[in-house]
């Protein structure tokens, strides 16, 4: 019976919001606990079950030398390793440091910079160890998390679409904020999963699920520029929670390069 499957939840540089989504599964949480032994989940229980684990959920990005080593051991302990959220999957908002000078950040923030041991970059888990599956989002979507766990318990592939947020927008009948209000929205190049929450509340998608497949950013930002959005706003839009995702990174760098010409 599936009840012997062991789950571990691990945290790196992150805000804990994705782990909280697991607790937010509410009614489903008890059902999940019937099928999985939640062996390691420091956010939620003080008992620490040693590895190995059948499935490890990893939140957060790698920002310190110690974490770069810790993820190696976690990988060894997990049969399946799944990154949860923008930090683990693309480096998170803290990857903005990748465009700056780490020494100047450290000396600006900490009274005694010598005590700080940090890396110059924030990088996704997949830059360090092989990852079996990614759950996108900032934070992840609880329905996608339940789908992931369900598929794992039932032994099938998780159904997590790689299509654009526009698919979800149209499915719920939301009026497009880009077309009807001229708001620059990243939905057409962002992976679905959130249920198009932001457009449904009259604001733009800001790309927290990372780039969709494909993601034609040059065409989209070009359209917004022609409609009057300043390049600086488009750089900020593409350089946020998934700034380090290759497609978003390439576009924010391209826009920045073009605006300096």
């Amino acid at each position, binding site marked *: 019976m599936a009840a012997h499957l062991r789950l571990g939840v691990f945290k790196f540089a992150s805000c804990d919001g994705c782990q909280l989504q697991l607790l937010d599964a509410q009614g489903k949480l008890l059902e999940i606990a019937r099928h999985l032994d939640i062996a390691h989940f420091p956010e939620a229980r003080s008992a620490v079950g040693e590895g190995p684990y059948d499935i490890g959920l990893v939140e957060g990005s790698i920002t310190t030398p110690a974490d770069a080593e810790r993820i190696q051991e976690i990988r060894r302990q997990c049969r399946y390793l799944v990154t949860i959220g923008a930090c683990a999957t693309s480096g998170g908002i803290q990857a903005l440091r990748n465009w700056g000078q780490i020494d100047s950040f450290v000396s600006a923030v900490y009274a005694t910079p010598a005590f700080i041991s940090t890396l110059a970059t924030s990088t996704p888990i997949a830059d360090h160890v092989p990852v079996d599956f990614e759950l996108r989002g900032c934070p992840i979507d609880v329905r996608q998390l339940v789908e992931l766990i369900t598929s794992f318990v*039932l032994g099938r592939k998780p159904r997590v679409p790689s299509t654009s947020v526009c698919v979800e927008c*149209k*499915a719920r009948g939301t009026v497009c904020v880009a077309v009807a209000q001229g708001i620059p929205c990243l939905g*057409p190049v962002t992976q679905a999963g959130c249920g198009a929450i932001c457009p449904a509340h009259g604001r733009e998608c800001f790309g927290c699920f990372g780039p969709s497949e494909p993601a034609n950013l040059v065409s*989209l930002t070009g359209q917004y520029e022609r409609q009057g959005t300043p390049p600086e706003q488009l750089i900020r839009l593409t350089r946020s929670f998934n700034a380090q995702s290759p497609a978003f990174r390439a576009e924010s760098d391209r826009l920045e390069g073009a605006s300096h010409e």
Partner: protein
Amino acid sequence: MVVSPSPISERNIGDWLRLPPAGLQLLIETLAENHRVVGPQVADGAVVYRDLRGIAELPVGWLDEQDGGRYRLHQDPTAGFFDHVVGPHSLKNFLFPARETVASFVRTDGEWVQQTHAPEDRPLAVIGVRACDMAALRIQDKVFLGSGHVDPGYQARRQRLFTVAVNCRRAAATCFCHSMACGPAVEPGFDLALTERDGWFACQIGSPAGHALIQRLATADAGIVSCTVEEVDAAKQVSIDLEASMHARQPEAGAPRPRSLDTHGIRDLLYAQMEHPRWEEVATRCLSCTNCTLVCPTCFCSSVTEVADLSGDHVERERHWASCFTLDHARMHGGSVRSSTASRYRQWVTHKLAGWIDQFDSSGCTGCGRCITWCPVGIDLTEEVAALRHSDPP
């Protein structure tokens, strides 16, 4: 006591009546007794279909300006109840909903049992259906009812659908129903059809259900009388004039380009241009975002998934909208057969305007213009087809 100028029994299908706004209000209220009534309303910067309680909720005084990737509403004191044209929603949103549970199953003691489904919701009545969307309804009927593979959910909703169509008095720049022989005059198939006049509606009866409703209204002293011959002619002239003006439209500086589509030999034209470099050019602009297909009132693709709960004992078979712009749509063993955006855009246009003719004996396009307006980067199939037509095959 108001005496009706002609007795009820003389009113037949095809007859025209004079309906004051209060009559339309009563019509909506009467329909609501046993229908879910939806109609156009202003919400979130567009005219969308929503549940409608009365004429006060209709977009009176609102006009829409539409262009590639752009939709804006503005108020105009001369605009009537229905001088806006089509918004992002169509009948498809109701008859072929984005998500539908088509079956469900429960496993008890190792045995799977199919659950019986709860009966459908109340029948649907839609106010304000334009000619292009009545044409789209005929096209979707062929797809879901006419192929020998009847879709039971669609059929149940369609059979009980009540349509109050509206003849457009105005077209948006993105409208090109005149090119597709789909408007602007509403073709028979409606239950009632309205043509807005100065402060009243000319209402034509189109079906036995429409006739029955008018009979109920006429007994309620709603000021409904027969149209005079002159009034009927004037109402018919509205569509004739609009169609003529659509054919005569010319581009004007500073205004959205008026759309039209030359359909002459379009099937063979498109089939001959499969390797044209224009497809690659569109692909540099196309986002593969799916908006064009999802707003199109005739696009019918769907995908079916079995959704199980954690126990694996409860399974819902869910159908949801799919689009030829997603990689998954053409994924089969070994990968996607349409991995480039160029191949996906080509699939959409050639199916809509050419393959559809072979498959369903009509175009898949009604000229409603939604795919142009709601494409975030304003890709315009009329422009793409013109580009293919006015260049030599490679």
